[in-house]
């Protein structure tokens, strides 16, 4: 059987994949970039298969190539299909992330797509596809294109107050593609540096985590530290070579929080005795410069979050009464956290009043159900506000806080 015959099947598969990619709903900036990059790539691969088949037949190497071709193309299709199947994850969250990359002024450099997964994390899909294609005979030039895939657990998708945690992942992309501050001071040059036991590896990884925490904290405000603490904090039994211990991370993050919104006193009180990690931050000689690079980045783009206490309070007052606020996403999220318990209590009171039930008549189980319902309503309300905030940025003349066209 000639290589031309063998590759015919794969060309059909690639054609089908292209059709599916084209049907992908191009709502977010990330998805548009995904469609553009993947369709171009599939076209190149399809053309490449013809050239490759001819050369394999000329060289008499068809038998060696068939199995590799199958594995490579199957892996390629698997990764692309994973993104396609995750397309409906959360439109609101996509809008949120579009706004973050807009704010960071990296929307053309760092398109983001989401994927549900058990662990929060991210990687660059193009790097992965490049590796996959290099497994076979494709000398494909993917240039400097990047598509950041953020892996997000369901628990974080449901509650919008957790969404600032995803900014950490976008900050990783900013470091990888724009800043490269950690890369400058602690590059991983040799095989030995890639060993997690090596000092070079740990300095690289720890610096980068502190750097992206600094960016996320200064951009998001206390909500980032607060929700990271609520969801991820634990005192380590075994210490990771890639992530500094939590207490040390929080110690650095707390220095970056703009005062006056949330004192985070409970978190500060936990930081009195920080045990040594694998490397303490003070032993990472260039950490101050690396953190400064993160601060300078935000300052340069005018995106440090430094609102007045009164601004936060005004938004909080609105949210407590479930009045929408759609101007600044970060103000909204920080105020929404502070307003949450009162807003939920107000929602429960209103419902009981509407149903003509006195609070004293409500049993424990019923109250718990009421609280769950109210929390769900509040989460939806905050998500709606976030979506409108994004739409307002994109279509400022249409969306206003009063919910009608300003042209009207």
């Amino acid at each position: 059987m000639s290589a031309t015959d063998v590759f015919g099947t794969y060309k059909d598969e690639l054609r089908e994949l292209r059709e599916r990619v084209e049907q992908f709903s191009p709502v977010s900036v990330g998805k548009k970039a995904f469609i553009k990059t993947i369709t171009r790539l599939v076209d190149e691969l399809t053309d490449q298969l013809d050239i490759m088949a001819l050369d394999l037949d000329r060289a008499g190497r068809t038998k060696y190539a068939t199995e590799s071709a199958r594995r490579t193309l199957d892996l390629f299709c698997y990764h692309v299909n994973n993104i396609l199947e995750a397309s409906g994850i959360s439109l609101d969250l996509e809008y949120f992330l579009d706004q973050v990359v807009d704010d960071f002024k990296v929307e053309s450099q760092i398109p983001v797509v989401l994927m549900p997964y058990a662990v929060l994390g991210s990687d660059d899909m193009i790097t992965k596809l490049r590796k996959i294609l290099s497994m076979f005979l494709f000398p494909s030039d993917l240039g400097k294109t990047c598509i950041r895939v953020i892996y997000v657990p369901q628990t974080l998708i449901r509650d919008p107050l957790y969404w600032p945690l995803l900014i950490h992942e976008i900050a990783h992309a900013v470091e990888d593609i724009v800043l490269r501050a950690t890369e400058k001071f602690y590059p991983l040059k040799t095989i030995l540096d890639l060993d997690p036991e090596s000092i070079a590896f740990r300095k690289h990884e720890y610096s980068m985590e502190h750097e992206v925490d600094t960016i996320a904290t200064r951009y998001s405000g206390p909500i980032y530290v607060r929700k990271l603490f609520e969801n991820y904090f634990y005192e380590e039994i075994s210490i990771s070579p890639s992530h500094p211990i939590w207490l040390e991370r929080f110690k650095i993050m707390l220095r970056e929080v703009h005062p006056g919104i949330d004192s985070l006193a409970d978190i500060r009180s936990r930081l009195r005795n920080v045990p040594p990690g694998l490397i303490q931050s003070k032993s990472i000689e260039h950490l101050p410069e690396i953190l400064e690079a993160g601060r300078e980045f935000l300052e340069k783009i005018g995106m440090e979050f430094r609102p007045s206490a009164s601004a936060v309070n005004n938004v909080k007052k609105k949210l407590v009464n479930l009045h929408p606020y759609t101007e600044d996403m970060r103000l909204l999220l920080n105020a929404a956290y502070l307003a949450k318990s009162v807003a939920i209590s107000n929602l429960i009171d209103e419902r009981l009043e509407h149903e003509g039930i006195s609070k004293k008549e409500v049993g424990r189980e019923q109250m718990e159900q009421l609280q769950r319902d109210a929390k769900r309503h509040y989460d939806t309300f905050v998500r709606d506000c976030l979506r409108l905030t994004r739409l307002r940025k994109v279509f400022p003349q249409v969306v206003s806080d009063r919910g009608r066209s300003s042209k009207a």
Partner: protein
Amino acid sequence: MLLRSIRLQEMRHTSREVRAERAPLERATSILSVTGMLQRTALCLSLYKKGYKDRAKYWCSDDLIELLKDPGEQGATHINSLAQLHSIARNGDGEVDQKVLGEYQSLLMELQGMLGKVKEEAAVDVSDNLLKRIDDATSRLGRLYSECEL
């Protein structure tokens, strides 16, 4: 058992949490990436040997030469992983086997030198023995891929 041992190794050596979960796939790509490097080189040299010098030059891309010359992040990780996998397959300790590491590195270096010559249109003697060595290495990687249940 072997797969479990690889996973345990990954849990110990992972650099990012998310990588740990997808470790077997990363190992699979390590094996297949080196296989890819070898196959692209073999195709190039076979075309050259059969007189298709222009086509040989086409496959002798800069990125392949770079990978073979200085494997860098991608190649180094892969070769390291392979040496580790061979070791796990043999005795389960997961330490990088320097002998296996050296064998891969010397073959890749030799091929890099030949590809450089093809690119510069210098005379190259592509022996059947060299092509056989490449194919043997490819087969060995295929077996490793199967043994590791990847």
